[in-house]
């Protein structure tokens, strides 16, 4: 190895010495340009959402190529938040239909929060049983839980719909949250992996001091695994927020309609000839913004976790 370096190094330094200025590294220029192009492609649709939502829908056609909002107005937001009268809405190219995205925003917050809190708490309990307790059949039961990962969601969606209907829970929050409230195999698996890595000695010390399992779970395990629990919480919240098919099936009615379903309804309500693009983009922005804020505040954790949550 050392022989190799000695014979190679001088050549390299001779190259450098030959040119007075470091030559432009075209490879790096091309690489940076490609990265910037990819970033623009990634971010432009977000800008376009914002630009359109601040436009007057009637002016979009004449200024289709303008990078700035066409005839700047907040009318689209007022329209979808139910703060504009029908005449105002129609004047700016809205459909005039009564939409209230405040309500859908509230519903989305309720659903995502309940699912996240319930699922994490119950899955942490299950993970504790799988990782920290010794009992016969433990691995078999854990394996059974994991097999649920293999079943495609639509397969269980059909019978679950019948069940929720038979329980009379269509168009209730309970019907929307129940299937994911108690567990998802991924959450159990993810938390178990972390609980397995916790030190046993502290637990044993606590046990000698007379602490029961409940106490150890709340006072030791959960605090020690707070970082992965927080990461999982963010991921669960985002998934619950973005879910479409299940709430579409069981939560059509206005009082429980979540943002994703409301967007689909809003899109199908717009007249075929001249859709209310500005209103639609304002509505999508309202649906996307809370997640983007959550991500801006807590995102670093998610970014750094992607290696192991996805692969290990």
């Amino acid at each position, binding site marked *: 190895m050392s022989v190799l370096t000695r014979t190679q190094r001088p050549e390299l330094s001779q190259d450098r010495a030959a040119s007075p200025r470091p030559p432009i590294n075209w490879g790096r220029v091309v690489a940076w340009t490609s990265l910037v192009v990819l970033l623009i492609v990634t*971010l432009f649709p977000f800008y376009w959402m914002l630009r359109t939502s601040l436009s007057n829908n009637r002016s979009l056609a004449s200024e289709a190529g303008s990078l700035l909002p066409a005839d700047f107005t907040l009318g689209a937001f007022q329209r979808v938040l139910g703060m504009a009268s029908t005449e105002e809405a129609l004047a700016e190219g809205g459909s005039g239909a009564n939409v209230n995205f405040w309500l859908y925003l509230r519903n989305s917050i309720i659903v995502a929060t309940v699912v996240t809190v319930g699922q994490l708490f119950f899955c942490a309990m299950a993970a504790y049983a799988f990782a920290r307790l010794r009992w016969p059949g433990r691995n078999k039961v854990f394996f059974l839980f994991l097999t649920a990962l293999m079943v495609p969601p639509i397969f269980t969606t059909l019978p*679950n719909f019948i069940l929720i209907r038979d329980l009379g829970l269509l168009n209730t929050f309970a019907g929307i949250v129940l299937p994911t409230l108690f567990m998802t195999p991924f959450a159990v698996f993810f938390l178990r992996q972390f609980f397995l890595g916790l030190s046993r000695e502290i637990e044993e010390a606590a046990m000698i001091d007379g602490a029961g399992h409940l106490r150890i779970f709340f006072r030791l395990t959960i605090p020690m695994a707070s970082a992965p629990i927080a990461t999982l919480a963010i991921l669960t919240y985002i998934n619950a927020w973005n879910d479409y098919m299940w709430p579409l099936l069981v939560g059509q009615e206005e009082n429980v309609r979540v943002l994703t379903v409301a967007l689909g309804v809003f899109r199908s309500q717009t007249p075929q000839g001249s859709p209310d693009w500005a209103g639609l983009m304002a509505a999508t922005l309202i649906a996307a913004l809370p997640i983007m804020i959550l991500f801006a505040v807590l995102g670093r954790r998610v970014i750094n976790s992607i290696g192991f949550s996805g692969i290990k």
Partner: protein
Amino acid sequence: MSSQVSAQSAIKTGARRSRRLGDLWVALAFLLPSAVGFVVFYLWPTIRGFYLSLTDYSLLGDAQFLGFDNFQRLFNDPLFWNSLRVTLLYVVINIGLQTVVALALAVLLHRLTQSVTIRGLVLLPYLVANVVVALVWFWMLDYQLGIVNQLIDWIGLGRIPFFGSETWAIPTIAMINVWRHMGYTALLIFAGLQMIPKYVYEASALDGASEWRTFWRVTLPLLRPIMALVLVLSVIGSFQIFDTIAVTTAGGPVDSTRVIYFYIFELAFERFDFGYAAAISVVLFLILGGVAMAQLKMLRAGDSDLS
């Protein structure tokens, strides 16, 4: 000191006494809520799904047992074969493009910058709901007013009916989801790149290999197991395309985007043909199981390149 020792020995004898059962009762208490969830919303519906696939059930009245009639019907259903073909086309375009773009993006990020902010920006599309992504692109790709067709117009090419033509609809939807997933996939690959030790690159630099050559001869072979895993995850996800289609083309034009998920959804919830819908989802179940098995085999084959 002595009391601690005696306490420990007491625990040991206690443990010996209940070794057979261990913490069984405590464990059952801790498992209860998730076990209820598992049985009611995963295990039971899975069994019921298989049963439903053997029946005729219209959501009203009782399910009529049919045996394997639904599966016979499926063989002669052109719409079923069409949905399989369309889904496969989507998966091939989606995964093909996505893997190449994500790999390029991951390598660029790895070689150029350590910035967590840039990685965050790249991840942004993945965090936004499918429905939102679909609607934004539906607007940007609009035939009359969409900015993309404006651009195409300026360049001097003919406008493209992205969602309105049978040839363009599936590639368009595949591209939209490449946009949504490329950053996430890139970060998965990025995590794999970080696991390749630095000395490998130093050695290849000392041998005078160019970046290009290093990528093909060093990075890519060492990345193979991670790429295989990323493929397992993304192919299975790709088969389940639904949201984007439901809010944009709704299966059209002329069945060209009636993918298998959407076909099952339509059969069950619009035509109330629950038994037949369940039969098709059994087929989907088998296909996805097969795909996962085949890919995991591939994965094992590429296990130990580094160690």
